């Protein structure tokens, strides 16, 4: 879809803004470019639509060199959203969104329909907002229009240069969420520049970390967190990110792998002995293939000791479990619903692979915390 091959940018004064960058983005991918200021992230993005021409290497879009297009034509086929929004103050909202379709020579009926569709899409009522002027809108509303404008002629690629960094935190969070769902819905290829790591982790399918014009690592958020390829990457991400982003931590990292299990036919007395020996509070009940059946708690066992023959009579059935593909965040959420403070983790065949307890959650989180504290 979009490919950078040995792309560099050297300014007239000899300053090397981007140094031989290579990467490829798939159609529909959400790529975040991140790095400190002066890292070349914005320049890298702007080279795609030739707002900044590159000085060597090749940038190709769908296999075609972007230098082979007429610059204006190229830009009309790529959506562009900037931090300062840049709506035309002398145009109504309607006319602002219609700019690119107008440039492309659409007829007015088609433009009108598209404008209304887009205003709906970004959550602004066309009846109220179409004829207003930008200065009558809040910053958040203006950037919604900015996004609608970028989508107007239905481009495959959208470039976004820190689009939310000038907004207040609540609006920013809201628009980030809406952009994620827009991206899922429309399947556009998005190149998004930011300096905010939380934003990058939240938005990106993949994140490219840049420094001094070089691309240090391009990976999924999970991989960046767990396998930083470079000391700078690790430092830039910050270890505390995992605590803030439990959705990026696999549940298999926080579960304990030693699980005390029992077949359902065990007698309550023997089960109680086992529980006492192993100093646990509940037993995980499995079948002979080690597949999860349910949980029996020590409390219920003691209470019903004389009334039952086998433990499966008081077993809580298997509704509460996590797949091993789940994240720490899922575990935290589910833990609230768990009557025994423990959640079995199973694989795709429902075989037991581990157990998350309140204790293991807490120790995983606190070990992250102490690592961060020590790092300071």
């Amino acid at each position, binding site marked *: 879809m979009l490919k950078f091959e040995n792309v560099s940018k050297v300014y007239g004064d000899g300053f090397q803004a981007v140094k031989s960058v290579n990467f490829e983005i798939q159609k529909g991918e959400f790529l975040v470019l991140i790095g400190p200021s002066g890292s070349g992230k914005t320049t890298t993005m702007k080279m795609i*639509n030739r707002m900044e021409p590159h000085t060597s290497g090749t940038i190709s879009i769908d296999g075609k060199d972007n230098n082979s297009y007429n*610059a204006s034509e190229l830009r009309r086929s790529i959506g*562009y959203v*900037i931090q300062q*929004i*840049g709506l*035309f103050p*002398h*145009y109504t909202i309607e006319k602002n969104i219609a700019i690119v379709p107008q*440039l492309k020579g659409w007829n007015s009926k088609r433009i009108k329909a598209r404008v209304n569709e887009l205003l709906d899409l970004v959550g602004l009522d066309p009846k109220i907002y179409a004829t207003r002027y930008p200065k009558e809108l809040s910053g958040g509303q203006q950037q919604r229009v900015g996004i609608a404008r970028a989508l107007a002629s239905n481009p495959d690629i959208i470039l976004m240069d820190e689009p939310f960094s000038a907004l207040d935190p609540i609006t920013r969070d809201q628009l980030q969420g809406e952009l994620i769902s827009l991206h899922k819905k429309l399947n556009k290829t998005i190149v998004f520049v930011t300096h905010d790591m939380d934003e990058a982790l939240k938005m990106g399918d993949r994140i490219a970390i840049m420094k001094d014009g070089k691309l240090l690592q391009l990976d999924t958020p999970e991989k960046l967190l767990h396998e930083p390829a470079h000391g700078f990457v690790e430092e830039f991400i910050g270890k505390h990110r995992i605590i803030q982003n439990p959705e990026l931590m696999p549940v298999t990292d926080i579960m304990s792998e030693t699980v005390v299990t029992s077949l359902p036919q065990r007698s309550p007395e023997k089960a109680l002995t086992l529980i006492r020996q192993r100093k646990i509070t509940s037993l995980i009940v499995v079948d002979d293939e080690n597949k999860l059946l349910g949980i029996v708690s020590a409390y219920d066992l003691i209470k019903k000791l004389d009334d039952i023959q086998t433990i499966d009579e008081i077993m809580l059935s298997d509704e509460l479990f996590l797949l091993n593909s789940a994240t720490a965040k899922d575990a935290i959420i589910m833990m609230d619903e768990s009557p025994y403070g423990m959640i079995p983790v199973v694989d795709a065949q429902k075989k037991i692979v581990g157990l998350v307890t309140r204790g293991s959650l807490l120790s995983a989180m606190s070990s992250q915390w102490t690592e961060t504290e020590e790092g300071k």
Partner: protein
Amino acid sequence: MKNLTIWEQLVEQSQMRWKEVLEATSVHIQLVFFSMLIAIVLGISLGILITRVPKLTTLVLGGAGVMQTIPSLALLGFMIPIFGIGVKTAIAALFLYSLLPIIRNTYAGIKDVDKATTEAAKGMGMTSMQILFKVELPLAIPVIMAGIRTAAVINVGTATLAAFIGAGGLGDFIFLGITRGIDGLILLGAIPAALLAIILETFFSAVERWTTPEGLK
């Protein structure tokens, strides 16, 4: 010679010369109109040019600035060897005199357009010409109009001096009044000239408001 008050003089003179006043006013208007027309066309063009070719900025603004510092009477004098005596010289001098406010305001008006707006325009695939005519000029219009208004008002006043080089206009009466010592005659030229300036000022203010894009008001 009768000893009249200035008002009696004015009444007497205007009864005697009202036809000449109308004629002179029409000449005066023509001087202002043609010199302003050339100044607007050239001033706006030069103003746009120097936003595109930064190397020329100092030269053009400096040059127009120097014109402004030459005393208006002297400028009229300098023009005589080139265009001779009469209307042409007056128009040329008035034109040079009106140029600076128009160039300067055009330049400032375009330069003051928010960089984000022009970047967005370029990023959406507008050509340089489209950006100029659809974004920069519409947004700069109020500032440009203010420059034209300033130039027009200066122009009406300066045009009275055109009488000194035989171009006619309302300056004729002022000139005559001074040489003959008739104050009423001076007023006969000065009052219509002042009225003309006020009318132009009002007119261009209205145009300025009218051309300001809705979203900027």
